[in-house]
C-alpha cells in the first residue's frame, strides 16, 4: 500500500554534546494518518520531533514538509502544532487568557468554549499554569496545540498525567483531528494505546530507522514478535 507523504526525513544526522543522536535517519510520515513513533528511551524520538518543530537543525540531511524544506517555511504560518513532553506556557497568563490569546491569534476563537467543556477546565480558567496540577497542565498544553492552525500535530508523550477519562477524550480528539484531514505524529510508551489508534508506525533505535509501515509490516520485519510490546522489549534489551 502506498501513502502520500506529508513529511520526510532524509539522511538526518544530529549530534548533541559529542554523542550521535540521529544517524542518517530517513523516514516518511504519510498524510492524513495517525503515526506512532516508537523507540526505547534514548532512541532519538524526542530529538526527531524537535527537528520537526525546528528547535534543532540537522548537522546533515534534510527535512521536507509537503516537499518544502521546513527551515525555509515562514514563522508566521508554520503548519505544525506541538504538544511537548515538558509543557511550555506564558507564565503571566491565566488558563482563559492562554486560550483567548491563541484563539484570537489563529482565528480559532470559536473552538475555545467547546474545548473548555470537553476538557472540563471551567474550575481552572482564572488560574496561572504554575499552580495547576500535572494533569491539568497537560490538558492546557493539548488545548493550546489544538487551537493552532496546523496540518500536522506532533505529540510527545501527550498522555502523561491524564486520568483514564481524559485519555479517552484525547484519543477521540486525535481521531477527530484525523477526520479533519490532518496528520498526527504520536510518541508514547503506551504501546497498547498506539496499537489502538495508529495507522502507521515508524520505529527507530539508537538514531537509526528500524522499520516503518503498517503494524503488520513492522512486526514482520523482525519476524518473531507478535506484538509491538514484545518488539519494544527486545529493542530495549538490545540497548542495555
Amino acid at each position, binding site marked *: 500500500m502506498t501513502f502520500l507523504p506529508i513529511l520526510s526525513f532524509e539522511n538526518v544526522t544530529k549530534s548533541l554534546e559529542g554523542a550521535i543522536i540521529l544517524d542518517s535517519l530517513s523516514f516518511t510520515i504519510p498524510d492524513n494518518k495517525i503515526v506512532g513513533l516508537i523507540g526505547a528511551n534514548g532512541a532519538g524520538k524526542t530529538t526527531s520531533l524537535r527537528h520537526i518543530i525546528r528547535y534543532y537543525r540537522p548537522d546533515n540531511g534534510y527535512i521536507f514538509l509537503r516537499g518544502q524544506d521546513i527551515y525555509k517555511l515562514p514563522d508566521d504560518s508554520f503548519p505544525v502544532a506541538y504538544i511537548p513532553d515538558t509543557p511550555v*506556557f506564558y507564565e*503571566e497568563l491565566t488558563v482563559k*487568557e492562554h486560550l*483567548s*490569546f491563541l484563539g*484570537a*491569534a489563529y482565528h480559532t476563537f470559536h473552538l475555545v468554549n467547546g474545548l473548555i467543556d470537553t476538557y472540563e477546565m471551567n474550575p481552572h480558567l482564572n488560574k496561572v499554569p504554575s499552580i495547576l496540577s500535572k494533569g491539568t497542565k497537560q490538558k492546557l498544553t493539548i488545548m493550546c496545540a489544538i487551537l493552532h492552525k496546523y496540518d500536522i500535530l506532533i505529540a510527545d508523550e501527550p498522555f502523561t498525567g491524564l486520568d483514564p477519562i481524559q485519555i479517552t477524550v484525547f484519543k477521540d480528539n486525535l481521531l477527530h483531528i484525523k477526520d479533519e484531514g490532518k496528520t498526527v505524529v504520536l510518541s508514547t510508551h503506551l504501546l497498547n494505546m498506539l496499537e489502538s489508534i495508529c495507522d502507521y508506525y515508524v520505529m527507530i533505535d539508537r538514531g537509526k530507522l528500524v522499520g516503518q509501515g503498517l503494524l503488520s509490516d513492522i512486526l514482520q520485519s523482525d519476524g518473531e514478535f507478535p506484538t509491538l510490546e514484545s518488539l519494544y522489549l527486545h529493542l530495549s534489551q538490545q540497548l542495555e
Partner: protein
Amino acid sequence: MIFVKYSCIEALRELKILFKNHFWALLGVSIFIIYILRNIYLGLIAQGISLLPYRVPVGIFILFIQLFLFLFRKKSIFFIVPAAIVWFSNTSGIKSVLATAVFMKSISTIFIGAIISLFIHNFEITNTFLFNFLSISLLFLIVNFLAWFKFNHQNKIFLSILFGTASLLFLLSFAFGYYLSIIGSLFLLGFSIYGSLRIFKIDWTSLYDDVFYSYRVDNAARQQNIAEMHQIIAEHSSRQKHFLRLSQFPLNHNNALFFKAFIETTRIDKQLILILIGFLVFSVVINRTSIFSSLPFFGEPKIARIVGILSTSAFLANLKQLYSKQILSILEKHKSGLFIPYSFMAIVINYSSIGTIISIVCTTILGILLNTKILPLTYTLLLIMISNLAFFYSLSKGRLNFFVNLISNVILFIAATFIF
C-alpha cells in the same frame, strides 16, 4: 558545623560559576563601582570633608532607607539553602541552620554599618566613630529582626511601635549623641533575638517558598539562562490577583500580541516598577529641590547633573532590558513549540512599541519637571527611539547582541544628557 562546611563549599562553587559566566559583566560593574568610589574619594575624603556636621539629615536619610526596606521588603531577610530546610526540618538541627543564617547576615550588616560610619567620619577612627558605628549597626540589626518578624506575619502595629522606638533611639544616639539611648537599642536588640528564638513562630512554608524561589532565580542568573530566570520571576509574580485580564479586550489576530504585551506590562513585579520610578524621582529631587543642596558632593550642581544623567539613563536602560527579557522569553517559547502565528519581527515590534512608549512618556514628564527646553527634549526623545530601534531590531535574530546592547546604552546615556 557540617552544615557550615557544606554551605561554604556550595557558596564557593556558585561563585566560580558566577565568575565563569558573568566575567565581563562583573568587570563592568567593578569598574563602575571603582569610578563611584573614586569620585567619593575626590569629593569627600581627599578634601577632608566629614559628614559629622550633617548628622541630622544623614541620620534621617539612613532611617528613611531602613523604613523603605522594612515596609517594602517581601523576601526573607535571612537566607537558608532550601535543601537545608527540607533535610533539617523537624530536627533540632534546623535551629543551628537558622542561627548560622542569622550570624552570616549580622556579620554582613555590621560590615555595611562599618563602611557607612567610615565614610561619615572621613575614614578617621575615633571614639565618636566607634559610638556612631555602634549606633548604626544596632539600628540595622534591629531592623533585620523586625523585617524577619514581619515576614513571619507578626502583628504590624506591634512591629511599627518597635520600629518607631528603634528609630527614636537611633536618632537620639546618632544625631544628638545621647549615650544612654545605645543601652535602649541594645535592650531592643536583645528582645528581638529572644523573641525570634522563644516567642515568635516561624512560617517555614513561606520561608521555603521564598528561599526556593530566590535560589532558582539566582541559579538561572548564574547559568546565564535569561529565559528561565524570566519564567521563574513571571510565575512568581503571576500568582497575585489581577484586575485587568486579557480576555476583557476585543481580541483579534492583529491586536492580540499587542494586548498580550500590554497585560504582561501591567503584571511586572511592583518592586521593580518602584525601583525604576525611584531612578526618575531621584533625578528630579537631586536637581530640582534643595534636599541635597546642603550636602557636600551631592550638593554640587555639576555632580547633581551627572548623577541625574546616570540615574535617568539607568531607568531607560533597565526598561529596555525588561522588554528584551520578555521578547527573548516569548521567542524561546516560540522555538520550543508554543508557536504563535507571527514573525519574530512582529513579536519584537509589538513588545518594543510598549517599552518605547513608556520610555518616551516618562522622559517627557521628566523633561517637563526639569524645565527642559523643547529642542533638547526632542533630541532626547529621538535618540531614545534610535537606541531602542537598533536594540530591538537586533533581538529579532532571537538573541541579545552584546555590542548592540552596549552601543544602545551609550546612546541612551547621551540622550539623557540633553534633558539636564
